[in-house]
């Protein structure tokens, strides 16, 4: 754990220092095997095809430049789709162009008759073309056929006219428009146009007018003037205007321009005098991408670098360091490689270390030391470091000089190249000791020596009137004073409260004195055992220290009432994701019910008055004499009583199980019935009593 955190400290400091130096120096590595494995991963072909013809071409071109073999299965299926595209009459100009590009790599079998038909079709499109894409596809197609077969005549008769019509689309700042009715110009279009014009120059059956080529050279210079730069010397082209025609990212725009310029440089016999620093800057831009994440970006990068490498003039040379960290203790030697962008060997040359800048200071020491070339490993080796170079972070400035002066026209070396280098070593730690002093007098009560190379476990005790002193000396392998990036002393109380102090230095000596009298408040008046931990670390220090030293028993006075309380230690950070406490719901206690026997007793008691009522009726000698004797009235009377009984029964049912709506419905029917029957009965009774009265 301590080791891991120490390494983490080291790594973060290293990264921070790299970032800080990067604005003037950068490391660019040429194409390596990691690009090859990335290509195999990104351009994965499912069932033998890579997708559309354009994507297939991108994959095949990348594999071709990187030297990766294609599977035979891929070849047959792709050749089938290529011949389909080339022989069908409904293929568009773009499809023909893409198919011819793929054929250029795979070299599928195609007969000359097919080529002749395509050539005539392309020539027709050249004459009738009005947009840049039409020109690009048709001229490009003709150029590809020229490479693939020599039987068919691809030369253009009126090359001057075609040149002028493409040139008419150019703008004054070196960029090109896509067509005459679209006013927006783009850098990508400029690259396409240059490539097309290079094709026109090569396909011309008679010499192109000299002045046209001269104006085009001016256009290229103006285009290169519009290049954008980063601080570390990389250059790139970016699209300023958004348009729907071409791609928008700097990689594809820069690739297009690089392709156009190198194609034109190869096509024309005249020298172009391209600015070397811009070409090198473009190469560094593409190398600076390192391993792109998408297949398209990888294709752009590899294609551009291949164009730069195979260009007739201005091949950039890249200086790279296999290792930028030199260890004094391991006696490493600084090694430098000079390659082309694709990683192949450069021409014979020598490398000199010219200057060393130390980070943080502006001054530099002039060295002018030549590196020795090791032909077996193809590296230039700095056999001994200059005398005044101690451990630390530096920027080394190298200069490449070509052995053969003829090569100067072809290769670009880029003057001085600055590279960040770290020189690490073992820092000596001497005279480490820890002591407890009495505050006023300064006399030492306890003093213990520490060996910071090994584990220590000192046991000290102090009270609030004393001081704790820790001191040690740091020196570099060459004996000079060394100031590390971090020097901390941490005190940790047994309850988890931590306090960190920075160890100050004067020259070689590092010392910290903790006066507990002033720190009592800071320590929250917590007495007890405090663990001591020392951290000394720097990115160039190979033996960074993160060690426990032991512990000190501190006796501090009691806290007054108003003192700050120590911060509560964080509980285990993951416990918040554990199960939460069980929630016990508190329900209202149900009402107390009377005991069953009591309820039943009162039920009987309530029924008693009813029986009393019946007994009273008997006592009063009630009779049913008024009940009608004759049939009809008797029936009605009985029905009346039955009706009342049924209504009461309905009520009883309503209480037990029915709902109100059903009850009301039934009551409605029963009520009507009862009304009718009751009316008949009672009117009969009334008439009987009226008869009696009158009689």
């Amino acid at each position: 754990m301590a080791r891991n955190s120490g390494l983490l400290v080291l790594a973060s400091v290293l990264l921070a220092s790299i970032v800080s130096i990067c604005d003037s120096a950068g490391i660019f590595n040429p194409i390596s095997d990691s690009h090859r494995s990335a290509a195999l991963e990104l351009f994965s072909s499912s069932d033998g095809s890579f997708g559309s013809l354009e994507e297939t071409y991108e994959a095949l071109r990348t594999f071709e430049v990187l030297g990766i073999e294609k599977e035979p299965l891929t070849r047959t299926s792709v050749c089938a789709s290529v011949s389909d595209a080339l022989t069908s009459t409904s293929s568009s100009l773009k499809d023909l162009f893409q198919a011819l590009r793929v054929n250029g790599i795979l070299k599928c079998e195609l007969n000359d008759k097919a080529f002749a038909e395509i050539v005539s079709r392309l020539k027709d499109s050249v004459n009738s073309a009005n947009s840049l894409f039409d020109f690009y596809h048709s001229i490009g197609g003709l150029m590809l056929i020229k490479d693939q077969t020599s039987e068919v005549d691809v030369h253009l008769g009126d090359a001057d006219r075609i040149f002028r019509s493409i040139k008419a689309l150019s703008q004054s700042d070196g960029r090109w428009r896509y067509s005459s009715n679209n006013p927006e110009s783009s850098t990508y279009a400029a690259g396409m146009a240059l490539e097309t014009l290079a094709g026109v120059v090569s396909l011309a059956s008679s010499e192109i007018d000299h002045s046209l080529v001269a104006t085009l050279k001016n256009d290229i210079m103006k285009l290169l003037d519009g290049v954008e730069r980063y601080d570390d010397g990389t250059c790139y082209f970016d699209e300023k205007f958004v348009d729907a025609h071409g791609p928008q990212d700097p990689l594809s725009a820069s690739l297009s321009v690089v392709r156009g310029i190198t194609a034109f440089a190869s096509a024309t016999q005249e020298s172009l005098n391209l600015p070397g620093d811009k070409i090198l800057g473009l190469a560094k831009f593409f190398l600076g991408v390192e391993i792109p994440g998408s297949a398209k970006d990888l294709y752009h990068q590899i294609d551009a670098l291949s164009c730069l490498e195979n260009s007739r003039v201005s091949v950039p040379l890249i200086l790279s360091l296999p290792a930028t960290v030199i260890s004094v203790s391991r006696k490493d030697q600084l090694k430098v490689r000079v390659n082309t962008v694709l990683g192949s060997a450069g021409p014979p040359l020598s490398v000199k270390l010219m200057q060393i800048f130390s980070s943080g200071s502006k001054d530099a020491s002039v060295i002018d030391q030549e590196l020795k070339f090791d032909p077996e490993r193809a590296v230039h080796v700095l056999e001994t470091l200059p005398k005044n170079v101690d451990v630390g972070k530096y920027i080394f400035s190298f200069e490449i000089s070509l052995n053969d002066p003829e090569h100067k026209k072809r290769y670009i070396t880029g003057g001085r190249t600055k590279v960040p280098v770290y020189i690490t070593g073992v820092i000596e730690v001497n005279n480490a000791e820890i002591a407890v002093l009495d505050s006023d007098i300064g006399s030492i009560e306890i003093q213990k020596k520490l060996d910071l190379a090994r584990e220590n476990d000192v046991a000290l005790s102090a009270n609030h009137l004393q001081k704790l002193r820790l001191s040690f000396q740091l020196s570099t392998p060459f004996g000079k004073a060394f100031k590390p990036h971090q020097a901390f002393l941490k005190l940790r109380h047994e309850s988890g409260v931590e306090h960190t102090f920075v160890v100050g230095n004067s020259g070689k000596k590092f010392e910290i004195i903790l006066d507990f009298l002033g720190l009592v408040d800071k320590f929250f008046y917590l007495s007890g055992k405090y663990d001591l931990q020392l951290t000394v670390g720097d990115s160039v220090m190979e033996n960074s220290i993160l060690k426990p030293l032991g512990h000190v028993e501190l006796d501090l006075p009691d806290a007054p009432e108003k003192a700050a309380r120590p911060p509560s230690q964080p509980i285990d950070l993951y416990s918040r994701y554990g199960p939460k406490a069980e929630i016990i719901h508190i329900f209202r206690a149900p009402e107390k019910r009377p005991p069953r026997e009591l309820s039943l007793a009162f039920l009987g008691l309530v029924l008693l008055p009813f029986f009393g009522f019946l007994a009273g009726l008997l006592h009063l000698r009630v009779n049913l004499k008024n009940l009608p004797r004759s049939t009809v009235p008797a029936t009605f009377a009985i029905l009346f009583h039955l009706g009342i009984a049924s209504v009461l029964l309905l009520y009883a049912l309503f209480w037990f199980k029915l709902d109100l709506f059903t009850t009301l419905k039934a009551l409605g029917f029963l009520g009507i019935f009862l009304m009718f029957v009751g009316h008949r009965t009672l009117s009969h009774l009334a008439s009987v009593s009226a008869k009696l009265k009158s009689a």
Partner: protein
Amino acid sequence: MGRTTTSKDAQALFHSLRSAYVATPANLKIIDLYIIFAVVTAVIQVVYMAIVGSFPFNSFLSGVLSCVGTAVLAVCLRIQVNKENREFKDLPPERAFADFVLCNLVLHLVIMNFLG
């Protein structure tokens, strides 16, 4: 001397009431008996509530109100049926009885709904 007079007076009052009551018609006596039955039932229910507490209060209310309501309706019936009552001379007693039955049925529907 006074106490004996009051108790004698009370006794005399009671006797005269009793003898007068005997003269009432039989149907009125039946109605009176019904009223006494209803009120006694209500009293028993109140005593029960006093003992066990009023937890299902709606049940208690519906029980008591059913007894009291039917007693009130019976009182109305007695007023209307009583021949000495000149106010209701023209109202036939059967009509009064029909009203009594109807009102009781409505009362008991409400009571049954409120009983819960």
